């Protein structure tokens, strides 16, 4: 059972990579990330805040990760529906959730390239590479972030199945989550009433830890913060699993599997 589920996940993963190969429309976030990095860096350097260059490098990369994962991955079901393949996918013996997870994971994995891009642009603009003082923390945080992102992208995918105007949801959700996720402004600097909701967004823990991994100052409570990302990620998976089950049952009941 586990082996078969793993096979469906890897099948979904490789299939998605194949679908994305040589198709720039899947990579729009990766195209805009270097431009955003350059803009943020220019602003911070003009304000003589060299101490904030790490924010300018990580912010656009996190935005790209969010956009590719939640927007592109969240749209996977909508794409299947429009392509007329959703019914056949649901009717196949493969666990739909496993295939979807594999595909989302592929998108999230590819989106990590935004960190390389932003780091390279940071080097080009400032003339020195942004130093990675704690590579282990960086690697662990990125890994957990991608996994957590895949879980929450699954939640979004379910919402998009039910909504006819999925893109409106995407646009409406992005900016509030950039704020709550502390991608540019750390959660600690948000107004107090926003700090608690921000703590429930795994991205806020991720962005703080990623900045800590670049900073020369000692990083505190690393395990606890990694655990927070993991717990919130698992919450995403559980919610996605429940929602997907209910959503598929609902569309089979309403007969809207082939259309919203």
């Amino acid at each position, binding site marked *: 059972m586990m082996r078969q589920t793993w096979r469906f996940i890897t099948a979904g993963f490789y299939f998605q990579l194949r679908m994305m190969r040589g198709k720039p429309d899947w990579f729009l976030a990766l195209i805009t990330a270097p431009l955003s990095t350059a803009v943020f860096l220019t602003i911070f350097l003009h304000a003589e805040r060299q101490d904030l260059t790490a924010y300018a490098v990580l912010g656009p990369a996190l935005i790209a990760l969010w956009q590719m994962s939640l927007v592109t991955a969240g749209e996977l079901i909508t794409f299947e529906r429009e392509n007329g393949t959703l019914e056949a996918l649901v009717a*196949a013996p493969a666990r739909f959730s496993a295939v979807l997870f594999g595909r989302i994971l592929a998108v999230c994995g590819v989106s990590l390239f935004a960190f390389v891009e932003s780091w390279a642009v940071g080097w080009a603009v400032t003339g020195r590479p942004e130093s990675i003082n704690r590579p282990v923390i960086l690697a662990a945080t990125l890994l957990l972030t991608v996994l957590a992102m895949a879980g929450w992208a699954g939640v979004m995918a379910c919402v998009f199945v039910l909504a006819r105007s999925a893109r409106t949801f995407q646009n409406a959700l992005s900016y509030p989550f950039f704020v709550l996720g502390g991608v540019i402004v750390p959660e600690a600097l948000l107004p107090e009433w926003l700090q608690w909701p921000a703590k429930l967004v795994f991205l806020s823990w991720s962005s703080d830890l990623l900045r800590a991994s670049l900073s020369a100052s000692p990083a505190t409570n690393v395990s606890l913060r990694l655990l927070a990302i993991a717990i919130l990620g698992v919450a995403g998976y559980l919610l996605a699993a429940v929602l997907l089950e209910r959503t598929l049952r609902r569309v089979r009941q309403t007969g809207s599997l082939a259309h919203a």
Partner: protein
Amino acid sequence: MSEAALRVEQLRRSFSVRGCTRVALDGIDLELNGGTVHGLLGPNGAGKTTLCRIAATVLLPTSGRVQVFGKDVVSDTAAVRRSIGIVFGGERGLYGRLTATQNLRFWCAMYGMKRREGRATAVTLLDRVGLGDRGDTPVETFSRGMKQRLHLARGLVADAPMLLLDEPTVGMDPVSARDFRILVDELRREGRTVLLTTHDMAEAQAVCDTVTFIDGGRIIGSGTPATVRRLATATRRIVVHDVPEPEAQQLIALLVEADLPTQTEIDDRSQTVNLTVPGEKVEPAMALILRAGHSSITSAPPDLTAVYLEMLGRRADGTERGMQVG
């Protein structure tokens, strides 16, 4: 009770759209024996595709029961999915940017095959549907008929004992359609059960062991093509060949005056007169046609097209179906 390949009991399915309820299937009962090809015939919106979708587990019944090889499509979904291959025809339903081989390999993976097995299966199936030399071509460049053939190959990926083919030959050229009939015959000989929806009566007559006429969500006739033809009508079809237009009009006037045919039709292009005549009037009609000097005549029981038109050519309120032409 013996295990039928497909058993449908009192199946009802309705859809609610903006407060209005439309009944797509209204108490359908159907039973298919294993290893047979069954045609589901009816006009657009009759409920054929809805029935296929319920059997394919992608749509839930409002009430009633559907079993595939004894497994319930609602409560035993996983088992049903392992025992069916589906083909929802049309332009969509394939990954256009991927090649035909990549499409099939993905579907092989969805049916639990290992990569090597999937690769070999894709090659075999592409050969089987006549796309062996187009395996590396992106599907978006395929013609409609080629896409239909790839749909068929996808349906065969499961190697399932039952196949649900929803209008599988739409857009196929005559050669492909003939090949499809041969393929269905092979599937029957392999012992598979096929449920086929189609508008092509010649195709249904050629490949189906049994047919069901469905309209307005209800079954209005079922049986073998031969029994359905008898069930539907006691008329016969007479075709008079090589009759140019003025003579055709005269011949029809003669026949109508003698109150012999129930339906008449002149085909200018093939210069034929097509007549539908009650069984007891075949002899006098033939005699009259011969007396009028026409000896090139064929007579046959009505084909499925004629039966279809007789059974489904009119709506329940008596108005004619179809477009307002002529």
